[in-house]
Structure formats: C-alpha cells, structure tokens
C-alpha cells in the first residue's frame, strides 16, 4: 500500500512539473511581447530590448524555468511586473479567500448531496422524479448566473444581504459569514445538483448488487442495510464524485469571485491575465495545480483506506 501511494506521489510531482513547464513555456516564450506589454504599446524598441534583459526574458526558456523552480523552493515566485508586489505575498492573502469559499461549499455539498442522492435512490417514486428534475435544472444554470440571480433578488431588490465585497474574519466574523453567504449559495446549487445525481447512481448501483439481496434475506432491517452496507460500499465512487466536485468548485469560484468582487485567487488570475502580469499568472496556475493534485492524492488515499482489497494487500 505504501509503495502504491509513493508511486502516486511521484506521478503527481511529474504532472506538476509537466503542467508548470508547459505553462511556463507558453507564458514566457514571447519575451519582447511581455516587455512591450509592460512598457505600453508606444515604447521604443531599444527600451523594450532593455526591459527584456532586466526581466531576464533573454535567457533560454529552460534556464528561466530552472531559476523559477529554484526560487520556488525558497518560497519565492518572483514579483509582479507592474506593482512589484511579491507573488507569494499576493497569493497568501488571496488563496485563503478562495479556499474558504470552496471548502465551505464542499462541506455543505457533501451533506446535502448525500442526503438528496440517497433519498432519491432509496425512496424512488415521485421523490426520485422531483429530485432528478431539480438536479437537471441545477446543473443547467451556470454558477455565475445563479450568482447574478442572487445579487438581483436578495441584494438589489430586497437589500437583505451585502451584494458584493469581502470582510476578513479578523475584522468581523459575522461580516465574514455574511459576505460569504451568497457566494457559497451560488456555488452550492450546481455542485449539489451534480453530486446528488451521481450519488444517486452510486447508491442505486450498490442497491442492485447481489449481496444486498442476501443481507435482506437474512432479515437485516432496511435501515441497517442502507446506512451500514450500502453507504459503506458507495463510498468509493462517492469519493471520485467529491474530487470532481472540488475541481468544479475551484473553477466556479473564479466566476463567483468576479460577481461578488471577492479578493480571491480567481480574481487575481483574471486581473493578472488581463494586464499581462506573467509571474502572477504563473503563481495562480501553480497553486491551482497543486490544490488539484493534493485533492486527487487525498481522494486516492481515502479510497485505498476504505477498500479492504487495497488495504490488506
């Protein structure tokens, strides 16, 4: 088991290197272009040339990438081309906002989608039909449209909650909760709808397996069959659903941060990309990839721990 986990870890690191190198080449491949973007379109060629050298963009890509990796180990991701702010500093204030948004939504998604998914699968009949219908509706409307609808009804029309902006928990905990309520709600609709539908399928698959019939035939109550046996055996596919949900939430957060003006990582990436601030963009790509890989790894680890076949090998 330890060996297979170690293999996965090595594989994750390889993926990280491939992704960052590919992004790095794309981003830094056009040195003069970057320098011109930094200096403005009317900059003279000589100035552009000088800027290329000061930014270190004249060196071979591999060398640049090596330097970037090297300073990465010292926790240094370079500085913004424009404000000169250190990328790690910028990320350290941005990442917690996005993580809070994603993790709170994820926790609520787990509770609600398991509840709805299991109910739909076990109850069947009209409960199942209604939940399935709502699930299609929920997946059809993109998170940013739900966000706009929430802003429109709750914030603009009723003025019940703050429409946009972010309050740090250090300043006011209740303000923080309020500022995150609508964003979490907006992300939650789609993720619960998607995850519940997949949990439903997973539970139905397990319910259709032979051993469930045999357990029933032994006189075990339906409640015990569902909560002890079916849920336990649906956990594996359920974990896959959850890691996919997390990726979906990370992507959705980018739009949600835009709608609610939350100072998260997605907003940073968007601003940096629109201003051609390459080190900043690189930093956000790195952090997102690392988060995705960690989630994948944790998912694999939990799946291994849950599966007696993998665990006892």
């Amino acid at each position, binding site marked *: 088991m330890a060996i297979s986990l170690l293999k996965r870890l090595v594989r994750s690191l390889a993926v990280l290197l491939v992704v960052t190198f590919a992004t790095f080449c794309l981003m830094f491949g056009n040195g003069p272009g970057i320098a011109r973007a930094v200096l403005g379109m009317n900059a003279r060629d000589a100035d552009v040339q000088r800027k290329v050298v000061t930014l270190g963009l004249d060196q071979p890509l591999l060398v640049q990438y090596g330097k970037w990796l090297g300073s990465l180990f010292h926790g240094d991701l370079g500085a913004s081309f424009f404000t000169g702010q250190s990328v790690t500093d910028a990320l350290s204030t941005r990442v917690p906002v996005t993580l809070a948004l994603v993790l709170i939504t994820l926790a609520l998604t787990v509770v609600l989608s398991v509840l709805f998914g299991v109910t739909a699968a076990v109850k069947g009949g009209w409960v199942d039909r209604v939940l399935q219908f709502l699930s299609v509706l929920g997946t059809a409307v993109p998170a940013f449209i739900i966000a706009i609808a929430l802003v429109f009804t709750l914030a603009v029309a009723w003025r019940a909650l703050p429409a946009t902006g972010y309050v740090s928990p250090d300043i006011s905990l209740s303000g923080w909760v309020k500022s995150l309520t609508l964003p979490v709600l907006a992300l939650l609709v789609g993720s619960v709808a998607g995850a519940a539908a997949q949990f439903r399928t997973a539970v139905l698959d397990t319910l259709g397996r032979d051993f469930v019939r045999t357990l029933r*035939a032994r006189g075990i109550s339906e409640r015990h069959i569902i909560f002890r046996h079916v849920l*336990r055996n649906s956990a594996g596919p359920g974990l896959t659903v959850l890691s996919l949900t997390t990726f979906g939430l990370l992507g959705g957060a980018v739009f949600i941060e835009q709608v609610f003006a939350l100072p998260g990582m997605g907003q940073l*990436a968007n601003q940096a990309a629109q201003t*051609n601030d390459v080190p900043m*963009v690189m930093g*956000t790509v790195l952090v*997102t990839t690392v988060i*995705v890989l960690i989630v994948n790894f944790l998912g694999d680890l939990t799946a291994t721990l849950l599966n007696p076949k993998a665990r006892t090998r």
Partner: protein
Amino acid sequence: MTAGPAAEATLTQPPARRRVIVQLLRNPQGALCLAFLLLVVVVAATSPWLAPTGPTTTQLSASNAPPFTGGHLLGGDSAGRDILSRLMWGSRQTVMACLIILGVSVVVGVASGLVAGFYRGRFETAAGFASDVVMALPGIVLLIALYALTGPNIPVAMTVFGLLIAPTYYRLVRNVVLGVRNELYVDAARVAGLADLRIVGRHVLWAVRAPVIIQSSFVLAAGIGIEAGVSFLGLGDPATASWGTVLQNSFDGIYNNRWGVLWPALAISLTILALILLGNALSDVLQSSARSRTLTPRARRAALAAAQQEDAGRRSAPAGSPDDIVLSVRALRIAYPSADGEIREVVHGVDLDVRRGEIHGLVGESGSGKSQIAFATLGILPREALILGGSVLLDGEDLLADESKMRAARGRRIAYVPQEPMSNLDPSFTIGKQLSYGLRAVTSLDAGEAREQLVGLLDRVGIKDPERVMELYPHEISGGMAQRVLICGAVASGADLIVADEPTTALDVTVQAEVLELLRELSRDRGLAMILVTHNLGVVADLCSTVSVMKEGHIVERADVETIFEAPQQAYTQELLSSSRSVELMEI
C-alpha cells in the same frame, strides 16, 4: 437470476430499428429540445438579416431602456445598444464555440480512443498518461492564463477547451473499443482479410457512435457555460457580441436597468438545459435497453387492478393441510414492466407445496421464472417487479398479504442460499462481522454469543480454522469457502425452510459435490425443508425428493424424483432429460 425478465424482453424487441431521429421526435422532451436548439442555430445563421440593429449600433433611445419600450423588445444596455439584437448576434458566437469545441474534442478524443483501444501497446500508455495530465489541469485558470498570451480570442480559447475536454471522449471510446475488439465479429472480420481501417470504420465506429452522440450533448452544455463564463469575465473580444458579454454589460448596469441581465441569463441557461435534456432523451432512445423500468405508482395500481379482475374467474388448488406443509405457494403471478411500458408476466399462476424435511427441486431453463418464485417467497424481488396475485403461505400465514409478517419470517423462518458466492458477500466487512449482523438481526444474542455460535457453525459447515476466517474479508477466501460461509449464514438462525438458488452452479465440480453433501446433511440433521432452484438435473437426482419442472413461467410437471426420471409425463420434461443426458455424455 434476475436475467429472466430481461432475456424475455430482448426477444420481444421490435425487429427493425426505427430511425433514431424519428424516435427522438416522438419523444416530447427530445422534440422540444431539438426545436429550441434548431431555433438558436437558425437565429445565428440569419441574424445579419433578422436582427433589428447591428451588434454594436448605439441609439440614444435604447440607453438603459426597460423591456418592451421604444421598439426595443428586450430593452437596451447602458451604452444604448439593443439587447435583443446583441443576443441574436451573440448566438453566432455560441454556435461557433460549439462547432470548435465539438470538432476539436471529438476528433482528438475519438481518434486517440480508437487507436488506443484497437492497437493498445505504447500508444495506449502514452495517451492514458496524457489524458490523466489533462484531467488534472485547472481548466478555467489555464483559459485565463491563455488570455495573457493571445489576448481576447474566443476561437483559440474554445480550441483549448476542446483539447481539455477531449479525454472524456478518449476514455469513453477506448472502453467501448476494448469491449468490441474482443467480440467475435471483429475477429471474424479480421480473418476475412479486411484491412484494419475498414474494420474500424465498419464495426467499431458503429459501436461507439451512440455513446459519443450522447456525450457530445453534455460536452456542448459544458462548453456553452464556459464560453459564456469566459466572455463574462471580460476575456472575450469586446467588439463582438456574445451572450456572456451581454450578461457582463447588463450586470455592470444592474442598478440602472435591472431586467437587462434576465435575457442573456435565460438564453444561456435554456440552451444548456436543452442540451442536457436532449442528452438524456438521446440516451433513452439510443440506449433503450431491454432493462425494465419501475412503474409509476398509478400504472402499478392499474396493473394490479387489471390482474385482480383476471384472477376473479380463476380457481386455484386449495392450500395443503398445514400439518406437514411448511410452505404453500398459490396462484403466484409475477410480472415486470418493460421499456416500452407494457407489462410482461414471467410467472403465470404457480402452485407449489413443500413439506417438512422435503427437498423440492425447481428445475427449468434460465428465464423460466424459477428464481423469481424463490425471490417472491423471501420477499426479495427487485423493486420494479410486480406481484400480480397469489399467496405465499408459511405455516398457513400469507406472507404476501402482510409485509410485516414477511419481514418477521425472512431470515428467521425462511433463509436463502444464493447462486454466486463471491458477489453475495459484502466486500467491505469481514466474514465474522457480516454473519454476526445477520444473526443478531433475527435473534437476541449479544455479540459474544453470536460469535461463539457462528464459530461453531463455520466449523460444522466444514471450514477449517473458523476463528481466523471470521477475521478475513471476502476477497481473501475461495469460492467454495464463500459458499460454505453463505450456507452458514442461512442456517445460523434455525430457519425451517431454506431457499437455495442454484447453490452449486458457480463452483468447481469437486466443491459442488461437497456443498451438495453439506446441504443433504443439514437437511437431515435439522429436519429442514428446502427449495432447490437449479437447471442441473444431476443435482436434482442427487439431492431432491420431489421435483417441479418449469417452462415459461408455468409448472408443467410435478412428481417425486423417481417418477420424473423414470416416467416423465410431459414432452418438455423428456426433452430436458434427454438434453441433460447428452450434456453429461459430452462432459465425460
């Protein structure tokens, strides 16, 4: 054998496959979605002529105009542009994005999936790794990063999105091809000397087309969301209208014209909804397998009422005297709803009596309904099954009439030995745990007592070192041991009647003999009655005292075992006997 009703339904499938499009149009959901999507495409194609104004035409009268005013049906945005016109022009970008995404992802994903599945080898390994890497990419962040490189360029962004989503096709197609590849017809084609490419073209492409079409509709739904989202973030070309940019502009001006956001939001959501529903409808039409569906409660009641009416005229043999008869099945009718909404009866009014200590063989071909009877006596039929009528009397009490009586009897008085030992143990719990859960559900034993009793019983059913086996997981024991464990689980609670569904079919021949011997001993020692469902007449001759022969949901002959083997009355029984003899000869 739940295959029973399914197999029957397959036979009654319409012989000629109707054209998919015709079926889709007959499905109201599919027709509606197709019509809506067609409308979007037509608007996109004709917007230069149809749209009231150009995409960037500004008029003072339209500035923040509310809907339905001054010739601006959906109102205007803060820059004075007509929202309806911009949405009509924007649909061009939506359709273009769809074409690019579909083109790139289908070509890359399907081609690599075909090659990987068909030739395997190194290409498959490489493609697998590439697909894993791409799936691990933070898609939307990459699309944003791309902006820094290309500027506002939706076609490039959509090409990249197509590449990012291509692995979903790759995985789908590769898996389908791997399945098809091993099937006989591809082998036969290869032997016939057809070139590889033509094999791929003719057989494999045919097999992957349905899943690819269904998948495409979900991919497009995701693609439209991404295209709108990217434009909404402001990464689109401000000079071209798109639904996402209209949404963004209207959102920026939400305090001046609150209705402006409604129209682009509706356009985006409804199109995505139409694609998802179309995908669901397509998978209903293209993959409408023989799988039966659960009926709505109303259809269920109607079917039961109709069956009761039919039954009113029929007479069934009176139930046997309760003294020596443990189980008495009367006029039992079981049916399944089929995919086309009809109700197919698989057991047509069956009577069956089992006496104390009797081992009653229930024989017949697969699909003859014998397993259905077994499940019905235990109340463990699948949810979609319909019991149209009849009774299951255990010591004179009707279990079908009273769900609580059935629950009380199940596991306590009637026990079940399944067919396939490995799949009938819960893989996530140790043998000891799952046996103990079952035993403690029907007795008042505490954990220690249950364990002690089970260890003794495991020893009795011939498992060596039962203490250790209690701690093992199902995947750590052999099939023969698993079947002994399941028999132990069935007899542990001291039931009067065991229903054994093909208990030896999945086992090796030597193990088969041992398990049959065990069943015989248990029946003798404990005075157990047993219903033995099997298609193997050798097993019947070995173990049973009486036999019922089933054919197409009827019991065609019933007699003691000597009579059946020496003087079978029915032509079908004779046929069954002679075919089983010829099988035995071949095996020798």
